[in-house]
């Protein structure tokens, strides 16, 4: 028509420039996708990510001392804890007035329990003194220093006050230090006494046993994945059912199966005794220890190794192996130099998956692990439901989660989360 339309921007049907119109369409498409995702994303964020985040903040939160003894904490700040002298009368007076309020609200025993995590004896000190301090009147009954020391000599020890001062901060690294077998002291972080160092060992054991489980899963899964990938479809589908059946079976069923098999009067021991291979008196101890946990968890996690390996091996052309052999490679060389390198992605995917799952396992170690075969998860559960040391549980959980998320990140980099396959 005319030259002007040629130089101007290309227009869409409604007269807007095409570029803007396309951008708008793209934006609308993005919005629609996000609207579809939004309900679920919000649900997961609010009821999963947020609660975990909030729980993890408990690992550094330490308001209880500062909230229960507000006046004392202020007075203690002025006290030089390194001097070796007891704090002055002002601290004792502040302490009594704080305690009277706390006893009224029945909060002093909770404080005692909190401080008891750090040094034993604090709980009983607070509980016992509580009854007598209750009768004191902060306004008239002073001076309190000698009265308190008379009530319990614990109050006449510098250590008690140093302990209170050390843990009076609102944000503490104390739980994390506890989680790695150290403790917060006025002199900074120090190692726990020998007999209390259990957690590092437990972390080590969790990692070590997860590695063994992952290793044995690799060993057992590799041949199975190979044969599934190389047999004719019909046969391999039949065999796949044997892999998927345990995968679909309830975890508790499989754990109880191992209990039936491994216990002292269990199936394996009975067979061995019947065959005369072991003596009736020295039955094998295979349960309530590490062996039990490793065997049962290898069995439970094996399908998680076989499935990713299988899906990788399916894509490896069998002709490569034949080509290698025709060019003079021995069986072993052909496998090791040609097939194995191609199957590594499957091993990697399976290993990370199995390792992530095993490191946080709780149920199976709890049932077949006894005391020697438990994982860090069992310790977290113990602190949440029995010792009620939630701060320490949160700190242990934070460390465990950090390890798992690191592995999750690796998994995403190597395999991509979209490529996870089920069944």
């Amino acid at each position, binding site marked *: 028509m005319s030259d002007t339309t040629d130089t101007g921007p290309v227009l869409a049907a409604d007269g807007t420039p095409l570029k803007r119109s396309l951008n708008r369409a*793209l934006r609308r498409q*993005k919005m629609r*996708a*996000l609207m*579809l*995702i939004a*309900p*679920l*994303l919000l*649900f*997961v*964020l609010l*009821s*999963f990510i947020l*609660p*975990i985040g*909030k*729980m993890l903040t408990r690992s550094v939160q330490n308001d209880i001392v500062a909230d229960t003894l507000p006046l004392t904490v202020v007075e203690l700040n002025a006290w030089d804890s390194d001097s070796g002298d007891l704090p002055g009368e002002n601290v004792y007076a502040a302490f009594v007035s704080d305690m009277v309020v706390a006893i009224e609200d029945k909060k002093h025993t909770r404080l005692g329990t909190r401080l008891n995590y750090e040094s034993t004896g604090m709980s009983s000190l607070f509980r016992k003194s509580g009854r007598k301090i209750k009768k004191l009147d902060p306004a008239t009954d002073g001076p309190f220093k000698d009265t308190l020391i008379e009530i319990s000599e614990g109050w006449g020890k510098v250590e008690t006050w140093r302990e209170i001062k050390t843990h009076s901060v609102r944000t503490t690294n104390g739980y994390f230090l506890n989680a790695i077998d150290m403790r917060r002291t006025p002199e900074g972080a120090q190692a726990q006494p020998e007999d209390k160092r259990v957690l590092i060992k437990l972390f080590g054991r969790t990692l070590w046993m997860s590695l063994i489980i992952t290793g044995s899963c690799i060993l*057992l899964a590799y041949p*199975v994945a190979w*044969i599934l990938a190389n047999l004719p479809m019909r046969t391999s589908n039949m065999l796949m*059912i*044997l*892999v998927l*059946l*345990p995968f*679909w*079976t*309830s*975890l*508790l*069923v*499989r754990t109880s199966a*191992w209990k*039936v*098999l491994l216990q002292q*009067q*269990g*199936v394996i021991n009975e067979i061995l005794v019947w*065959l005369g291979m072991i003596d009736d008196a020295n039955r094998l101890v295979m349960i309530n220890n590490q062996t039990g946990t490793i065997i049962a968890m290898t069995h439970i996690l*094996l399908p998680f190794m076989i499935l990713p390996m299988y899906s990788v091996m399916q894509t490896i052309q069998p002709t490569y192996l034949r080509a290698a052999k025709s060019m003079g490679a021995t069986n072993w060389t052909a496998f090791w130099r040609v097939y194995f390198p191609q199957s590594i992605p499957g091993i990697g995917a399976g290993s990370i998956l199995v390792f*992530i799952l095993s490191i*946080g396992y*709780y*149920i199976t170690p*709890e*049932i077949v692990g006894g005391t020697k075969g438990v994982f860090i*998860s069992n310790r*977290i*559960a113990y602190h*949440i*439901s029995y010792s009620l040391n939630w701060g320490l549980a*949160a700190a242990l*959980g934070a460390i*465990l989660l950090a390890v798992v998320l690191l592995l*999750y990140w690796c998994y995403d980099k190597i395999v991509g989360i*979209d490529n996870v*396959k*089920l*069944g």
Partner: protein
Amino acid sequence: MNMNPIGAHGLKTSMAFTLSALALIVFIPTFVFGISTAQSFALFFLKVVLICASIVGYAFAMLSTLDTKRPAMAITGVASFLAGLSLFGLVGGIFLAVVGAFGAHIVYWLHYRQYRDKVATYLTSEQVLWHYTFRVICGLIFFFLVSPLVPVIWLSFNAENFFTFTPEMLRFDPEGYSLKHYQDFFTNNEWQRSFKNSLIIAPIATIISVSLGTLAAIGLSQSHVPGRRAIMAILISPMIVPLIISATGMFFFYSDIGNFLEGTLGMGKNLVGYIKVILAHAVLGIPFVIITVTATLVGFDNSLTRAAANMGANPVTTFFRVQMPLILPGVISGGLFAFITSFDEVVVVLFVGSASQKTLPWQMFTGLREQISPTILAVATILVVMSILLLTTVELLRRRSERLRGMSPA
């Protein structure tokens, strides 16, 4: 008779080869068995030699008199049945008959080189040997995978209140068997209540995760989604985060929510308990729905929705009439995964729920930790049957889905 007929594959049959191979096969288990049971070396030696020699001798006698496999299998089977019957009773007899017939089969299989029938002709002897060794290894691993379930099922019919086999059970005496543990499961209030709780919680949790999850999966599979990777990582995280950490987080969160619902909104304690557990389980099931549905959507042809829109369907109609029927298999199998996750879940319900929400796995867990009752095994058997049904459904759905999407069924 001709001692050296030509076997299959042009290889001459050789008595020496067959017998020495057989001796080797018999020797290994006998050696292991012998070394762990014998009190003295002489006794051990005698045992091993005696067993090997008698089996090899028998094979020799058989091979030199009978040319064909079937009569040899029949004779050996009957002979071992009689031996087993007199030594161990009926079951032992049947077991030994199978072993004997199979042994005879192996002998002839070796002798006539039938092991070469199913492998490529160019393989060397070592490769053939490795081929079969490898199959045996794989067989053992499959055995490891599946066999632990057998004693559970077997023991669930125990007439005694033990977790172990009684002599009556081993003799297959009907006296040793009963259905009383099943009866206990179906009549005991505690078990029935927990079963009912599981049947309330799991389906509702599944519906929530499937409906939200399917929508999100459709959103995620669109071509332009900002931050797709991060969103995916968040949505899959419930599967990755250790259950104990999820459980602790939810424990604090849902106790606050519970207080709010009970205190401020005045809802019943029981109802609030169920809501808490259901929501917690719904989150855990979401990754499975997302994974399976996005996998199905990979093969979805988006021009179908455009075609539907072109012909005047609104988005809702398009979704239900065009998209949904095509991705339904993926949605259902995701739903089954979500269902089994909730139905099998212990840790979270242990932390979030209260005694009135006790589910079946919870009841089993306490049973396994504290009082060991064989009812657990009856429940386990029922669950195994259920998982077989679920597995079959998922497998059928997968095939249907691949057929619908025009892939060849695998």
